[in-house]
């Protein structure tokens, strides 16, 4: 952006033509075009964010309009960081985050690699694989609770069919051991295609001549895979992990529908905990502090990650 259009037009355009460029000045148009968006973002993104920061230092409760609001300093933050339940919900989030990313990267990359073999009709099948990620997580998640029903649910029946276990002997959503995995399964089903698409873009960005050169050097296919394919796709894969990581850190709709955080608090992830504090207990000040902590956490982790990503790209 070192040279603006204005400069270029001005340089190229003879003076008598320039006079004909009527209407608003470029500067005016620029602000006219950007203005509404900035205004919208200021009112619906930035201002609320500042307000949240402000609220996080108070004991405000949105359901108690008649109660005096007091500034209580960092007390909300102290309470949150010292609350073992919050740390448990962070653990649940971490478990979900790690395993969804693990499976999505593994399956997503494999699929992309297979699709890149360019078999006939690959684009149609790609589209079909992509379908789940286009759908409403709440609506689909709600239906998965039906698939997970003991006895009548299809999922349990299929497991029974392959393992011979009694379909009413295990409850995917109700058991403390299985519930964390039941949400990992659905999220993996929904979002593997996203990782797959990004990997596919990465694979397709590798020019053929690199492989041809390797072939001439008599490098084995396996060696080619580890010295060319993986390093070239890695930046793309890391991007996919970044996006899925941020999304799953915020995870709410799918898990709320599937387990609602239960059994007990086994799958109560950060967002669900936040929802309970903010919109069921109405501890607005407290939950604002929690929201800020979550935001800073995502932002911090993402920034560190992006630095790492840039290093990988530079290599």
């Amino acid at each position: 952006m070192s040279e603006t259009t204005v400069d270029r037009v001005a340089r190229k355009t003879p003076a008598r033509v320039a006079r004909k460029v009527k209407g608003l000045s470029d500067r005016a148009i620029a602000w006219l075009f950007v203005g509404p968006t900035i205004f919208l973002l200021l009112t619906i993104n930035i201002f609320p964010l500042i307000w949240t920061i402000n609220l996080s230092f108070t004991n405000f409760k949105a359901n108690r309009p008649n109660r005096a609001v007091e500034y209580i300093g960092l007390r909300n933050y102290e309470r949150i960081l010292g609350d073992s339940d919050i740390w448990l919900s962070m653990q649940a989030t971490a478990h979900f985050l790690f395993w969804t990313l693990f499976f999505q990267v593994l399956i997503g990359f494999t699929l992309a690699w297979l699709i890149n073999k360019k078999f006939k009709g690959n684009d149609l099948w790609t589209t079909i694989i992509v379908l789940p990620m286009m759908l409403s997580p709440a609506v689909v998640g709600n239906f998965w609770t039906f698939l997970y029903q003991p006895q009548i649910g299809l999922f349990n029946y299929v497991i029974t069919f392959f393992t011979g276990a009694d379909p009413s002997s295990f409850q995917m959503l109700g058991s403390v051991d299985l519930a964390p995995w039941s949400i990992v399964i659905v999220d993996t089903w929904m979002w593997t295609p996203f990782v797959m698409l990004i990997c596919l873009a990465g694979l397709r960005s590798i020019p053929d001549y690199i492989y041809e050169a390797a072939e001439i050097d008599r490098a084995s296919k396996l060696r080619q895979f580890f010295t060319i394919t993986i390093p070239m796709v890695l930046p793309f894969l890391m991007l996919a992990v970044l996006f899925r990581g941020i999304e799953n850190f915020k995870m709410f709709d799918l898990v709320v529908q599937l387990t609602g955080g239960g059994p007990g608090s086994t799958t109560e992830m950060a967002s669900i905990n936040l929802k309970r504090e903010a919109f069921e207990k109405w501890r607005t000040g407290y939950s604002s502090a929690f929201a800020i902590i979550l935001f800073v956490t995502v932002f911090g982790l993402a920034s560190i990650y992006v630095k790492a990503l840039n290093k990988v790209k530079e290599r």
Partner: protein
Amino acid sequence: MKQLKLASASVLTLAASTLSTTALADDLTLCWAAWDPANALVELSKDFESESGHTMNFEFVPWPNFADRMLNELNSGGKLCDLLIGDSQWIGGGAENGHYVKLNDFFDKESISMDDFAPATVYAYSTWPKGTPNYYALPAMGDANGWFYRKDWFARDDIKAAYKEATGDELGEPKSQKELLQIAQFFQGREIDGKTVYGAAIFTERGSEGITMGVTGALYPWGFKYENTPGSYDMEGAVNSPEAVEALEFYKELYSTATPPGYTNSYMGESLDAFKSGQVAMAMNWFAFFPGLYADPDTGGDKIDFFVNPPQNQAGSTLGGQGISVVSYSEKQEASLEYIKWFSDPAVQAQWWSMGGYSAHNSVLNSDTFEASAPFAGDFLLAMEDVQDFWQEPAYAELLLAMQKRIHDYVVADQGTAKEALDKLVEDWTEVFEDEGKL
């Protein structure tokens, strides 16, 4: 003089009411939970529509989402509902935060007397602060948690003999909580007509209020108290008393030894499903569902009977039920009050009961025909004698969520001991009341 005043007042109100009916016909929205009685209310309200000229719309939300959505609606100052049949525990918040219109003046004006309604219901559904003559709702639907069972199974000779052999007792409606457990365990996993059946369907739901409403059915009969002295908020030794611990352990045993598989997150709907599909011998649920259960072509009639929540150390049932309130954000308060006036009429109340709604009006409950009018009517009166309700504090949601978590963690997720769960609950509740400035 006094009579004259009364007369002129009634003329005035008469004029006022005719004026408002002729002057404008409003579109009223009534919000309630989506369940059997709500459907009956739609039918009942058709009379109101034809009498008043107003149109009634209904917004019914399923129970698991009801509190969440309606409290959100009230807290956002929403105008969706003109009339709200809100849960008994909301009354504190509804009154203190100005969500509900105070009805005292209206009751005086229309000479609606709270003495005409069953005292337990007025206390629970209408008053805030508790027990004072400040009314924010008219008792709309009396309710308590009760039990129903497969009368046909209980009457079968082979099953009776097997029960006698297994336990040494006669099979019949349980007279204590422990007998209920024994019967439930007897049925658990038994083959009846070639089908495996289970003991009892109880409440274990996590998301809203389910497991709390279920477990209090055991806590109250054991003698559970919220406070050592009412109004003092001193909960240590009351909430986590040895009796409370025993009751909680009992509920966990009932859950883990006598409920159908996969029964980890179930409330009203699941209890009904389990019973109607012939899965369970007994089930707990609100009296509100009993008319529908009795009328069910497959499992109702001769095959079903009802009993009140059995006592243990004392009698006790968990209170349900709701009062009807006018939402203060509504722009149609006049017409909404008209609806309440119409609803409070003894004739309408009698009609309400006959259609499956539990009237709390004395003229209905005390009538000679009431007990004989349905097989569960007597049980209902019995239950209402010893009902207890959860906290009705403005901070009720926080108190409830804490209990949901602690109880579900212990009973379903199998974490810690009953004592630990209740100790933590005392801590949670203490923190809430400290935040409230009440401790």
